[in-house]
């Protein structure tokens, strides 16, 4: 059973393991620095489908299948699946996983969904509610642009603070095993809103939530940033990362040395014209479920804090002039139990 430590952190005493993981990406992601890390790359971002929404669902279906295959499991071995995406009513997940035949719990945490679903899957395994549970998350550049911004072919300009939604998906299957990576602890974040209204500056909107969750975890566990090889945020991009360092320095916490951001890892900002970096819940999902988890499994990374960050806005809330609430959930993943 998990033990609550400090105020909001749950220590997972049985240390559930990620027994299988996989990532799917598309052409632009495959032109980036992590090209070789993805399990499946589809050069055509339609994934063989007739609409962007169907393409996103296809990604979820494919990524779960690949993660199961790598873990040498079938869908009947799963007790629950936690899945989410950015589309209205989370149809990317619901339609993608409707044929999986596994009890489905849809989650929405905007771009924090990978950490949220992984946290819930791990807790279900830790408490014995499930022997194996999957966490699945996706985003698609084209379906996200269509829903949140402008039609793809519209010639509107992107400001320097904007980020590029990743077309990608990640799936992690959590179970009890004696093989790394292990989930050691989780911290659910509080909603933080410091009044950012610019939907083209998500990094700034989410940075306070990331700072709050990281600070909470370090306080709860009485640890220092130097105790971790990598503090990995989801999609703060360059601006959000810079603000995060500044916010934490005000609390006497220095993370710049061992911090990285999935949105900065997945693209080459200079060459790929992505402005402040990658974003979307598929960003942290595809980076975690490829490059990061394999490095933890292989012992190159010992202790990683994965903090996926989300901007809980909708096009309607932005048009009504409301500020953007941010959220960040933390999962401590380790190479040792």
């Amino acid at each position: 059973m998990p033990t609550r430590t400090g105020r909001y952190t749950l220590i997972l005493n049985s240390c559930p393991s990620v027994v299988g993981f996989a990532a799917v990406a598309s052409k632009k992601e495959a032109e980036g620095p992590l090209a070789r890390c993805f399990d499946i790359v589809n050069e055509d971002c339609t994934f063989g489908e007739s609409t962007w929404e169907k393409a996103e669902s296809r990604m979820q279906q494919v990524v779960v299948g690949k993660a199961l295959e790598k873990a040498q499991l079938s869908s009947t071995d799963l007790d629950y699946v936690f899945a989410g995406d950015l589309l209205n009513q989370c149809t990317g997940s619901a339609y993608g996983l409707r044929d999986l035949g596994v009890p489905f719990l849809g989650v929405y945490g905007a771009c924090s969904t990978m950490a949220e679903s992984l946290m819930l899957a791990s807790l279900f395994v830790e408490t014995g509610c499930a022997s194996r549970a999957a966490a699945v998350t996706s985003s698609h550049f084209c379906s996200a642009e269509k829903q949140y911004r402008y039609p793809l072919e519209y010639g509107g300009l992107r400001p320097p603070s904007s980020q590029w939604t990743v077309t990608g998906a990640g799936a992690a299957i959590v179970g009890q095993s004696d093989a790394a990576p292990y989930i050691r602890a989780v911290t659910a974040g509080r909603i933080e809103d410091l009044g950012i209204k610019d939907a083209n500056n998500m990094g700034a909107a989410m940075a306070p939530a990331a700072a709050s969750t990281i600070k909470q975890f370090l306080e709860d566990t009485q640890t220092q940033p130097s105790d971790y090889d990598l503090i990995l945020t989801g999609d703060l991009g360059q601006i959000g990362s810079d603000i995060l360092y500044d916010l934490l320095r005000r609390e006497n916490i220095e993370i710049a040395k061992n911090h990285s951001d999935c949105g900065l890892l997945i693209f080459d900002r200079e060459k790929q014209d992505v402005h402040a970096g990658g974003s979307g819940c598929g960003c942290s999902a595809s980076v975690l479920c490829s490059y990061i988890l394999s490095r933890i499994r292989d012992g190159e990374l010992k202790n990683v804090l994965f903090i996926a960050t989300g901007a809980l806005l909708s096009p309607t809330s932005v048009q009504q002039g409301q500020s953007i609430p941010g959220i960040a959930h933390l999962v401590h993943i380790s190479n040792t139990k």
Partner: protein
Amino acid sequence: MSLTPNEYEQLNKKYSPSSKTWKNCAMAFLVGGLICTLGQAIMNISSSLGLSVDESGAAVSISLIFIAALLTGLNVFDNIAKVGGAGALVPITGFSNSIVAPALEFKSEGYVLGLGAKMFVIAGPVLVYGITVSVVYGIILYLFHIV
């Protein structure tokens, strides 16, 4: 976090890069100028073929709208606009792009509720307020002439 929204906005400004205004203006001037030059060329050709000034003006509008719509459909216009910015969007080419782009995007939701309904999602406000202002302008002009 213990910051007020105002303090945070200052922090945000410190780390957020601003747009490259001078470069953007120069590119808008060049691309917008090129589009207008193309329009003038069509005007001259039309006139030389015997069309009146009004008819040549209509030929310019029709041609530029068609070219922009075609380039939008061929996935080219957004790349021109990325370089040219307002230079590509402010002329009638931008108006064409703003109608064709959503028509393409929302076709997947059907010809009526998708393409037909969403076609004016960007250009609609321009039409509403453009026509409204032209009515107000007409009334002012009418009153001015009466006075």
